[in-house]
């Protein structure tokens, strides 16, 4: 699309709509004459400021809407509209930016996701015990879980470190974390770049009162009070602050950072499930629907990827996701007459400790 020399009509005040500049559809924003591509870009800037999603999702939304607007402006110009008017109309068709941002937020939090969030909560509570059991699988596999063999050992994991009472009011997050690390007897390392998308900065004010707490409780309290509402409840594991301890250092970053670092590659034998008549694509669908759907590469995520070849399912994902996958596979294959008694007894033993049950 060519750039426009005649910018066209001035938008009164340069602003309209619920949010500042949200419905700008003209050629002047904040009193500056803009070419049409810049008008589109400025409007998209406003929208991106209103969308409360991760940076990768926002980038994708921006690219898609930018492409749409360019197509639409081109077609409107073919009907005889001047580019300035075509741009204005194309942007107007998208509606109010604040409403559009809200629709995207709802779309990212579908009913299915809310149900999943409940399951994730249960998975999360199963937490340490499940992770510990999975860690035992690293390096050579676990004879009690023959359906899974672990390719790579996961990295460091959360440790419960008692730090006594923590009570602060309106203190900067950086200062709070320093105090927490000191109480735990650790040096502190914070990856602020990973926390910025969560709205967490060194100066973010923190108010909390945790009596006789450990690190996990304190971090949970900080997340609940500071991270944006929809992710604080654990709906999105990548959307909270987390920590690990290694070599005397308390390392703080987004959970997404640790998820990516701790991914393990496993293979899961689907023979039992397939003998029971459960197709591979059904298992794929179950897993990517119920186990952290936004995390799967197939769904546009990053932390988990799966491929099924014959009777083998290859999964690379964080340990808690692997545990959820294993639970689904087990639920598909258990109680089948095709499973030999020994396998059934092994799987039953595992199921008793499965998450969410």
């Amino acid at each position, binding site marked *: *699309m*060519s750039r426009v020399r005649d910018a066209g009509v001035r938008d009164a005040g340069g602003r309209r709509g619920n949010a500042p500049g949200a419905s700008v559809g003209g050629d002047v924003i904040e009193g500056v004459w803009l070419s049409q591509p810049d008008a589109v870009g400025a409007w998209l800037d406003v929208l991106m400021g209103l969308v409360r999603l991760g940076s990768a999702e926002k980038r994708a939304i921006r*690219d*898609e809407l930018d492409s749409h607007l360019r197509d639409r402006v081109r077609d409107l110009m073919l009907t005889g509209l001047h580019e300035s008017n075509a741009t204005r109309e194309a942007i107007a*068709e998208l509606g109010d930016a604040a409403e559009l941002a809200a629709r*995207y937020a709802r779309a*990212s939090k579908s009913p299915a996701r809310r149900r999943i969030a409940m399951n994730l909560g249960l998975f999360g509570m199963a937490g340490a015990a499940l992770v510990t059991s999975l860690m035992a699988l690293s390096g050579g596999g676990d004879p009690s879980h023959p359906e899974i063999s672990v390719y790579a050992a996961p990295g460091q994991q959360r440790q419960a470190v008692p730090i006594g009472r923590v009570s602060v009011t309106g203190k900067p997050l950086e200062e709070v974390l320093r105090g927490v690390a000191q109480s735990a007897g650790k040096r502190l390392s914070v990856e602020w770049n990973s926390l910025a998308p969560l709205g967490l900065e060194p100066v973010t004010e923190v108010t909390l009162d945790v009596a006789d707490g450990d690190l996990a409780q304190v971090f949970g309290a900080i997340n609940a009070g500071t991270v944006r509402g929809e992710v604080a409840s654990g709906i999105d594991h990548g959307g909270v602050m987390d920590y690990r301890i290694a070599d005397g250092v308390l390392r703080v970053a987004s959970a997404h950072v640790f998820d990516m670092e701790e991914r393990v590659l496993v293979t899961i034998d689907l023979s039992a499930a397939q003998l029971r008549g459960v197709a591979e*694509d059904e298992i794929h669908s179950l897993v990517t629907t119920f186990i952290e759907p936004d995390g799967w590469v*197939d*769904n546009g995520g990053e932390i988990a990827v799966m491929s099924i070849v014959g009777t083998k399912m290859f999964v690379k994902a964080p340990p808690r996701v692997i545990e959820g996958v294993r639970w689904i596979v087990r639920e598909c294959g258990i109680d089948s007459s095709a499973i030999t008694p020994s396998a059934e007894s092994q799987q039953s033993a595992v199921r008793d400790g499965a998450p969410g049950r």
Partner: protein
Amino acid sequence: MLGRSGQRDDMELVVLSLLAEAPKYGYAITKELAAKSDGRVRLTPGVLYPMLKELEASGLIQGTWDEVKSEEEQPGEGRKRKWYRVTAKGKKRLAQRLAAHRAFRALVDALVGPETGEVTR
């Protein structure tokens, strides 16, 4: 008369149907829908794109990015375009929705008659 959720389900059915024919990008969906309905049905982009995002998050459709190649844009300046296709899960959902839609239409036809569409009192 359908409520808001009914209208939304109908639009989901329509979008899945269009994508089941062939992969499409968002703007192409709006144009094809307008063309096929002679302009009577118009899915605004402000509704369509969040819906596509939700369908993708639900695993019913899958999006892939492609670079737009046009004469007006220089190499390296190309914009990206997201193409959507229906997944296996989406095809199942579409079949379910179509079956439910046809069953409902048959019921209405049985009640009011398929030809006139007038309600008898």
